């Protein structure tokens, strides 16, 4: 067939579809292998660093010294790979067009192995997700796929890596849809399934068909047990909240420290973890072996209670101090311990027959996952995939929903999004994503923005704005917005003789903002809450100003729109 016989456009489209499909399988295999290798490397490193029975000194020194090294690597070479990797992957998908630097998967692998292998209480799934997404993005760009295709490969790689890391292919697909894409109806379901299946085949052919945990057979012994699962949901919700709030507060504390201390912050975490490991070596690393013990009745009540508390503390410290590792596995660990403890108590004190504590530990895993990660569908399918038993669905859904509701009520922003907020990244919420190509804030804003220097006094400020009839002004610069002041507050301050005071003293509290891709209805709603000036900020750096929206820009936009519309009608006519 000659080239001239077929349109080049059709050829390119065909080429890209075929390449995308082939690449999906290759990415599934490579991401799966990377996730398996990551797991094995963590185990090998842990064995190498700690040996069989480490002395207390070794338990303290290993995480401290290794964290010094990783702190240096994270600060100097791989600043994008701190923490879990799931929020970064979400940000890459939603606000960076799926572009992930080749340095990211490499750095995540290296620092993740070092951090988790040296005893930090963190999970391997989050890093695996970032590694898989990174591999997908790099390969997509290497093969010169269109930006849209490259972006679509990110959740594909993430699903494949998670599938291999956790050995639950269906849950991995759901996680990619529910958490990374944020849309259960996404058109990418086919690609993620293909990649997830490829990855799990690779993983099972290397590690065998054995599941991560020996899961007990589940039985709902008595209908009244459902009440016990409600109680488990309440406990799960409370533990989830404690975890999320604790993590965010401690992380904020570390963020407030001087920037030059960032190199040493992981080592501070390492030192504290080392001390904890002397007394509770069970919280070291991923800790799935102890989840398995809890599921199979191998832990005592007091041990489970203690481990639940210490693991929470250890994970919060490890993560907040800036190490590389996730919270997926710790949330399951906490759930197994909390659930197991509730199960033992119910087993002992309930006036009716109950199931084994292991069954409660299993439901507890799903409950904490729903409470912390806020992916309830993934949670249900993950536990269902582990047990392969329909009976568990009802109690699991009850406990999940209770924990989810409690967690959402007291911590409205999901943990991954809240972690991104702390880094100055605002992900688009579902209505914004759904708005797609409709009118957005970017269409209404002007990039012509006047800034009042941050160091100005009220008097200087008044001189600058006196000739301007705007109602409010931005203070700072285009790259670093400091705050917002109103004309009225400046006038009042000048009249009251406070001209020498810094302009910062007049900042409006709790001012609202929008991002360029916010839909117009939300933009207008926010504008009505603003003092007449609505800043439009970058999603990846929330202190960078992209533009502003004022009444004037809105009116201008409406004029343009109506003239375009009338022009359109005229021409149509």
């Amino acid at each position, binding site marked *: 067939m000659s080239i001239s016989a077929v349109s080049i456009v059709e050829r*390119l489209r065909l080429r890209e579809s075929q390449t995308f499909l082939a690449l999906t399988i290759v990415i599934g295999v490579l991401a799966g292998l990377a996730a398996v290798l990551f797991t094995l490397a963590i185990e090998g490193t842990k*064995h190498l660093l700690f040996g*069989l029975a480490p002395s207390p000194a070794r338990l303290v020194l290993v995480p401290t010294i290794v964290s010094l090294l990783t702190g240096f690597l994270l600060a100097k070479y791989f600043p994008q790979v701190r923490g879990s990797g799931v929020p970064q992957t979400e940000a890459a998908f939603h606000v960076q067009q799926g572009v992930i630097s080749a340095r990211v998967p490499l750095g995540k692998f290296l620092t993740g192995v070092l951090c988790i292998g040296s005893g930090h209480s963190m999970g391997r799934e989050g890093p695996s997700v970032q590694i898989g997404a990174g591999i997908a993005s790099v390969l997509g760009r290497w093969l010169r796929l269109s930006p849209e295709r490259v972006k679509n490969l990110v959740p594909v790689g993430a699903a494949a890596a998670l599938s291999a890391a956790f050995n639950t292919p269906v849950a991995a697909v759901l996680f990619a849809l529910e958490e990374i894409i944020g849309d259960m109806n996404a058109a990418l379901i086919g690609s993620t399934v293909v990649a997830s299946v490829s990855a799990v085949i690779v993983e099972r052919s290397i590690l065998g068909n054995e599941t991560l945990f020996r899961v007990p057979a589940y039985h709902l012994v008595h209908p009244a047990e459902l009440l016990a699962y409600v109680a488990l949901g309440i406990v799960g919700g409370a533990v989830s909240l404690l975890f999320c709030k604790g993590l965010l507060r401690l992380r904020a504390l570390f963020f407030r420290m001087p920037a030059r201390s960032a190199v040493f912050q992981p080592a501070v975490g390492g030192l504290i973890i080392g001390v904890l490991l002397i007394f509770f070596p069970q919280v070291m690393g991923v800790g799935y072996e102890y989840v398995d013990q809890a599921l199979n009745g191998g*832990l005592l009540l007091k041990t489970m209670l203690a481990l639940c508390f210490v693991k929470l503390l250890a994970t919060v410290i490890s993560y907040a101090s800036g190490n590389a590792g996730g919270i997926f596995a710790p949330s399951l660990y906490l759930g197994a311990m909390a659930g197991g403890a509730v199960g033992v108590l119910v087993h002992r004190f309930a006036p009716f027959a109950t199931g084994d504590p292991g069954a409660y530990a299993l439901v507890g895993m799903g409950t904490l996952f729903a409470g912390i990660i806020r992916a309830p569908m993934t949670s249900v399918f993950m536990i269902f995939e582990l047990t392969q038993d329909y009976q568990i669905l009802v109690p699991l859904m009850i406990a999940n929903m209770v924990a989810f509701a409690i967690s959402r009520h007291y911590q409205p922003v999901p943990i991954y999004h809240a972690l991104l907020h702390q880094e100055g990244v605002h992900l688009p919420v579902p209505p914004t994503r759904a708005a797609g190509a409709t009118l957005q804030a970017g269409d209404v804003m002007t990039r012509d923005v006047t800034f009042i220097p941050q160091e100005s006094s009220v008097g200087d400020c008044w001189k600058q704005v006196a000739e301007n009839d705007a109602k409010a002004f931005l203070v700072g610069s285009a790259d670093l917005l400091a705050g917002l002041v109103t004309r009225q507050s400046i006038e009042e301050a000048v009249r009251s003789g406070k001209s020498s005071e810094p302009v910062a003293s007049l900042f409006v509290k709790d001012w609202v903002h929008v991002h360029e891709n916010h839909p117009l209805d939300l933009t207008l709603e926010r504008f009505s809450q603003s003092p007449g000036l609505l800043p439009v900020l970058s999603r990846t750096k929330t202190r960078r100003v992209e533009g502003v929206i004022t009444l004037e820009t809105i009116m201008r936009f409406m004029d343009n729109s109506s003239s375009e519309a009338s022009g359109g009608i005229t021409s149509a006519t």
Partner: protein
Amino acid sequence: MQGPLHCPKCGHLLESERCPRCGCAERAVFRLVQREIVLLVLLSAAAVAMFLFTRAVAAANRSMNARVAATWYERGRQRLQAGDSQAAADLFRRATINNREQPKYQLALADALAAGNYDEEARQVLLRLRDSSPEDGNINLQLARLAAKRGAGSDAVLYYHHALYGRWVSAQAVTQRREVRLELARFLLSRQQNSSAVSELLMLSADLPQDPAFQTQTAQLFLDAGEPAQALSLFTRAIRLDKKSDEAFAGAGEASFQLADYVHARRYLAAALQQNPGSQQVRHLLSVTEMVLSYDPLAPHLKTEERNRRLIAGFNQALLRIRDCLGLQAERPESAQAAFQELYGEAQTLRPGLRPRNLTRDPELLRSGVELIYRIEEAAGKGCGEPSELDRALLLIGRKRAGAEQ
């Protein structure tokens, strides 16, 4: 899929199927397809190489974990032998963590937990193990022991039977099954389920090894279950295998004693005492046996004088017993007190007639005397405290004769 197309070379948006930036079109498609095929082949080759490497790493990791687990297991065994079940459980747990596929580590963990009285945890471990090997004899045996310990009788019997008919991997399977049945019989006896215990023991005795100790143990259980004839048979078999087994002699003596075969009982008990002179229990039983033999007035081949002497001696002892009994300030129902009074009255009535001349002349008087002695000793045995050796002997003589008459 009808979205905008980008140049495969520079990424710029295509306009009219051409790239305005680099101008590539048809030739670029060819190059691109060739390049993509090459890249995909390279990626596939890299994936295969990475797969082989990862598999090698996984194999090394597995063998390392197996070695670590074996080390923990050995250390755990040492701690368990030293009596530190808590530390042992911790070490066995580490062994199971490093190697989940080895059931002996799980069993050892369950053992250590049970030894530390963490029975529920031990049970959970065993139940998980049983899920994967429901026919394993050892797992079922451990579960049976735990059920027995917590008093769940039916569960225990069920697990013991699963253990009996389960799979034993060692070469000693037959011996292990025998041991399990012996343990089951002991358990049933402890729960007073004697008939079930006897059933198990009968099955056991059908295939006993030539091991005098084992035969003695089995015989002893028959004896405990109230089957002295079966017990005696096994004790004598054990004696034939080991003529110096004091336990077998003592058991045979007791079985004979229970069968009221006092002549053989004396022989066996004497032999037992010769082997083990320190046994107070055997000495006491021998003493009673000898009294039975020396105080029975109805024993065969006795001279009349001796027969009469025995009856009078026994009667006097019984009279003393009933008199002591009446003198006791024990709380007892009026009817019982009246019965004692009546027996005492009968004895007082019979006493003057019990003279050697009367006894020789009237054999019925002898039988009446023996019968009254028996009735007194039996009644006194129920409400007048511990009998003396002679009282016990008289009771046995009376019981033997009453049985013989029936």
